[in-house]
């Protein structure tokens, strides 16, 4: 297969020393194995995720994403924009759709962009990395790259919210998407069937502002993974990953549970299954170590 190229929007949390820097490392390894070239949008900015709305009105927020898209059109012409972060993907795609439907907003956005010497034409598709994997490769092709099947590991596919709603992955339902389960199977591991909390909210950004309420939600997500016999949880979203991994001690202290379950990205699993090292798969980024993956990677 020829090299596939995409215009890449990595997002704030992927940066060096940021909360999902490990996600980016594993994505880069995964893409090397799949012969995917990610052309980072030069000088990209924050999309304001879904939490900047207090200070940011509609137009300033749309303008943020429009700047990234305008830069992408200028520097990576004709390429689909791909994001790995769920919130980045959502905010960017929402912007393209809303400006596509509203000529006045589009004109106002371009008036603002002109101050930075940019113009947004709305020419390209905005996609999540998971869409690239499923639509541009497909499970069969993804399976061909597996060198070390993840045998004997049972994994709960925690899809979460923003890669699932409101856009979701083509052909999947909002209430019971199966793509993570299929991906887990493709990599030789065993998916948790009927993982009840697979699309439940972890609190998102409110894990910071409403910690108790969010941790109550996270507790159920983890409990339901354990109920399904899971050894680990996999997710496509940086906020889901962090929320479900880092608060386990707090939840244990409050509820008397004994949670200690690794939470990885799909790209972590793929990188290991594709034969890459623990370092290339960013296993060192796990606060709760994924020992079963380490064993396979070090084999």
């Amino acid at each position: 297969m020829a090299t596939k190229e995409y215009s890449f929007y990595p997002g704030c949390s992927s940066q060096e020393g940021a909360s999902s820097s490990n996600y980016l490392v594993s994505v880069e390894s995964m893409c090397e194995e799949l012969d995917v070239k990610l052309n980072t949008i030069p000088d990209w900015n924050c999309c304001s995720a879904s939490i900047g709305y207090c200070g940011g009105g509609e137009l300033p927020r749309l303008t943020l994403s429009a700047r990234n898209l305008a830069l992408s059109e200028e520097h990576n012409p004709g390429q689909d924009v791909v994001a790995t972060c769920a919130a980045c993907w959502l905010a960017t795609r929402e912007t393209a759709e809303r400006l596509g439907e509203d000529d006045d907003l589009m004109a106002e956005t371009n008036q603002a962009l002109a101050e930075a010497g940019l113009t947004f034409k709305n020419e390209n598709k905005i996609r999540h990395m998971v869409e690239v994997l499923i639509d541009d490769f497909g499970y069969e092709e993804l399976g061909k790259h597996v060198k070390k099947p993840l045998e004997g590991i049972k994994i709960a596919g925690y899809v979460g919210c923003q890669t699932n709603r409101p856009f979701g992955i083509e052909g999947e339902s909002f209430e019971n998407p199966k793509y993570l389960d299929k991906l887990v199977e493709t990599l030789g591991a065993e998916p948790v069937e009927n993982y009840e909390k697979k699309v439940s909210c972890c609190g998102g950004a409110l894990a910071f502002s409403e910690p108790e309420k969010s941790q109550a939600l996270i507790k159920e997500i983890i409990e339901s993974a354990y109920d399904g016999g899971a050894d680990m949880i996999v997710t496509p979203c940086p906020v889901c990953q962090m929320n479900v991994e880092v608060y386990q001690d707090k939840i244990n202290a409050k509820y008397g549970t004994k949670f200690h379950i690794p939470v990885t990205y799909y790209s972590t699993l793929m990188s290991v299954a594709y034969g890459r090292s623990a370092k290339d798969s960013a296993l060192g980024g796990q606060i709760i170590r994924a020992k079963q993956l380490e064993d396979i990677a070090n084999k």
Partner: protein
Amino acid sequence: MSDMNVAMVERYRNNFLKEVEHNVEEGDWVKMCMQCGVCSGSCPLGPYWDHPPQELFMMIRAGKREEVLTSTSMWMCTSCYNCIVRCPRELPITHIMHGLAHYAKRLGLAPKEQPTFKFSQHFWNNLVKKGRVNELKLGLSLYFMNGLVEGIKTSLNMAGIGLGMLKTKRMSPMEMIGGHSVKDTKGFHAMLKKAEEIEAARVEKYGKGS
């Protein structure tokens, strides 16, 4: 009361629905709500809303302006989008909640002690500064948003999590000094300023009743 709030009360009198349609993001959808309540039942933090979305929509139509705009309710939205995909009338409920929250803040009516009100404003200020979020400063500003004593308590309470993030290189003390930034900060700031001006002028225009 802020000047803008006074102007809006004058302008719209008893027609709060019209005010929302004109000034709130996606506000022209509010009238389409058929009061089925699926949004309220689908919300992960549903039990904590004083007035769940469906109720807010009815209150808007009933002209309960102050109750709606001073409410903590829309600040409970986690942006999970459950309500959006389940609404039989396809109202963009999540966006309307964000829009109501922003409008309440613009008029100076939002509950200033509400934690998500504070966090959301901190997040915006943080990203605007350099064009990219500085997670370390954001986290610290959040811990200390209720004052110094409370901040030290929260920091100690969260120290375990911070240590885990540091050890795995998912947090960096270097962010305290410089931190990540866009290169064209000048253009970035000029662009945002312009967008804010255009939006303010639009609200101003409705406020004046032209």
